[in-house]
């Protein structure tokens, strides 16, 4: 049978040669080639680590430390002025946390225990469970009852209507302060573990400069996207009652419900998202981000411009909401405005999701599995 097919290889060889010659002259003027020659993922990762991730984590460490210190003095001396002081310190730490909310990989994720966001950023708070744990003096945090600890549980303890009297109560006040102290220590330890982990992980992060699942770019991007979708769905969507199956708005499911800081925290979270996309530091120092990546691609300019415009529009929309009016009050007074806010965030998703991931050619969502 080989004799019959011996002509075919010769033919195909000629075909190969001629096509090679053809292909060599093919890519010229008519189609402008992709000029992505100058984009280097390693340099982006370095910039991300040094301008975005590490400074934000350091801020979080400092503010958590400060919060913990004032917590200690509040435990000794639960006065009104002390309470106001730790409320402020809590807010500072939480704002810093929002800027680290997307770093749930590397040291930000502990096997079995889960991610930093899952462990420290859960709401709505299960107040009954919190009260039960206070009574039981239960300070063991190895279980998965995460809705009874972390930033938002602290917020409940510090900002709920009778916070001060409850802390000062001669019978149960000490237990309450002890629980506050325990979850603050837990949170402080978590943050410290993450920050100290990054001291060595920074190099791993920069060196892992591939594009497949598990590469630093993929980890950073996926967590960035998850963070944005979490902001949209859980901070705006659920309180506004837009989720399928919800029959009405659920103001009590908003973030920072007791302090009423939800609106400003949403804006802050959005700022964190924008900073990661741009690779910029919180102080405004520019770094290398996804915008620069798009800019390096011939086909990326359109998306770059569109996304920049969208960011600007959404910032204007964000600013149309007063910091002082909480999501909980807004969904009751002006539900359609909040629903519109959600819709605008929803419309923006594809600019960060499919359009971006497709253009930069990164194996994005395959945390597991192969392609072909």
């Amino acid at each position: 049978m080989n004799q019959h097919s011996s002509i075919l290889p010769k033919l195909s060889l000629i075909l190969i040669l001629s096509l090679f010659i053809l292909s060599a002259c093919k890519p010229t003027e008519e189609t402008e080639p992709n000029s992505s020659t100058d984009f280097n993922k390693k340099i982006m990762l370095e910039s991300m680590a040094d301008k975005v991730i590490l400074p934000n984590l350091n801020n979080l460490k400092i503010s958590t430390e400060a919060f913990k210190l004032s917590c200690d003095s509040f435990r000794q001396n639960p006065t009104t002025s002390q309470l106001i002081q730790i409320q402020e310190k809590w807010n500072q730490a939480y704002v810093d946390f929002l800027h680290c909310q997307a770093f749930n990989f590397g040291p930000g994720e502990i096997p079995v225990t889960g991610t930093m966001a899952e462990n420290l950023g859960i709401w709505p708070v299960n107040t009954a469970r919190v009260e039960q744990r206070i009574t039981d003096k239960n300070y063991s945090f190895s279980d998965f009852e995460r809705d009874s600890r972390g930033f938002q549980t602290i917020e409940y303890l510090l900002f709920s209507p009778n916070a001060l009297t409850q802390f000062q109560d001669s019978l149960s006040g000490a237990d309450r302060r002890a629980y506050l102290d325990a979850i603050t220590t837990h949170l402080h330890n978590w943050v410290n573990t993450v920050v100290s982990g990054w001291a060595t992980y920074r190099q791993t992060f920069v060196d892992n400069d591939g594009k497949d699942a598990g590469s630093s770019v993929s980890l950073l991007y996926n967590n960035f996207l998850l963070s944005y979708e979490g902001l949209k769905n859980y901070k705006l969507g659920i309180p506004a009652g837009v989720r399928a199956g919800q029959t009405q708005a659920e103001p009590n499911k908003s973030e920072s419900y007791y302090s009423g800081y939800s609106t400003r925290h949403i804006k802050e979270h959005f700022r964190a998202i924008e900073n990661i996309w741009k690779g910029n530091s919180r102080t405004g120092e520019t770094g290398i981000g996804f915008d620069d990546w798009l800019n390096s691609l011939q086909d990326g300019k359109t998306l770059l411009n569109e996304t920049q415009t969208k960011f600007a529009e959404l910032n204007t929309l964000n600013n149309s909401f007063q910091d002082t009016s909480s999501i909980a009050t807004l969904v009751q007074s002006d539900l359609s405005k909040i629903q519109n806010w959600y819709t605008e965030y929803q419309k923006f998703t594809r600019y960060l999701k499919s359009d971006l991931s497709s253009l930069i050619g990164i194996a994005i969502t395959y945390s597991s599995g192969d392609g072909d």
Partner: protein
Amino acid sequence: MLAQLIRKFHTAIHGQTSIAPLITVRIMLGLLLSISTIRFIVLGWIEDHYISPVFHFSYFGFEWLPRLGAVELYAIHGIMLLSSLAVLLGFYYRIASILLFLTFTYTELYDLTYYLNHYYFVSLACLFLLIIPAHRNISIDAWLNPKIQSSTVPNWTIWLFKGQISIVYICAGLAKINYSWLMEALPLRIWLPPNEHLPIIGSVFTWEYTPWIFSWAGMIFDISIPFLLLNKNFRPWAYLLVIVFHALTGILFQIGVFPLVMMGATLIFFSTEWHTRWQSVLTEMIHWKSTFSQSTYSVKFTGIISSLFILYFLFQILFPWRFALYPGNLFWTEEAYRFGWRVMLMEKAGTATFYVKDTCTGKEGTVFNKEFLNDHQEKQMAMQPDMILQYAHFLKDHYQQKGLCNPEVRAEVFVTLNGQAGRLLFDPQLNLSEIQDSWNTKNWIYPYAIQ
């Protein structure tokens, strides 16, 4: 004339040839499948792919497939591993090859999300294994029962593999003959540059002409490689090309064991002498002595086999071309896209937002996809119309059970193809729960061009 041709063909495919290539294929496939099954288990994919998701996508026509639970799935993978090892050793070969085919194919059919052309190929190869007598030499079965030993097999057993592999390559090559692939070097123009981090070869991918060279070379390789492998003068060079090509794609793309599968499968093209030579090293190592009886292996029903052989290959040759029966852009509608050896042809992604409306109250809500789908499922669903339909039907049923009154499901789906700005796949007002999937044209999909 025709009768003569048929008779000629008949004697050709039933002529006897050495069993050696089949022994190689048996050992190689058994080995690869045991490795890939272990890999699958170790990576935790049984959990991620099959157990964790709330919802699974079905293959068209396989909606009835029972979805077994965690324990059974681990058992099935255990059976798959043991039967691949048994195939490798030729131990209870017939039963083992049947079990291997059934377990492998069952897991492939479990969820459409994970469809891969090379899994389809492996499924077909397992089907061949259960038909062919690959255990009649250098196997435990042939050792325990020397009477079954045979030095020869009918030609068709070898040609099943050669024919199928050729179809895979040629179809993959022909599919690359399109404007985007050849003229715009898409999607390679998107996929190659992010490989700049690779040691030594990394800088190659930042050169602006590399995507064009790779696009053309890939197309030419796919179309010509079966012919080059068939020719004994070109074969060593052709196999070198096979190794280089698949090693390169293995480094560049996240494609798992596929490069190894193809490097192993193409060994079938080598000469009898080549197979005998390496097997003689093996038989010496294991002190194997063949005791062939005079009667060589033969089958009755040669007529039926010839007909099935022809029917099978007719199907394999024609089925990939069914796309021609559908109007519109194949890459956009994906009607008849699967089972056609269209491998790594396009960069496509979507963002799909589903809305469920209670038709009694008029209240409409947004679905949070992550509640029902894992990342892999969401990504695949968001760009494939048939999966979008399935998901919409699932959502209707789910929310009906949750107490919504006669729910209506619609979706706003933006899809980006080869880096183009996302476009609407279909009318966001369309009630998807009323549309049934079928072989018919999905005329509710917007045309790609007019937007």
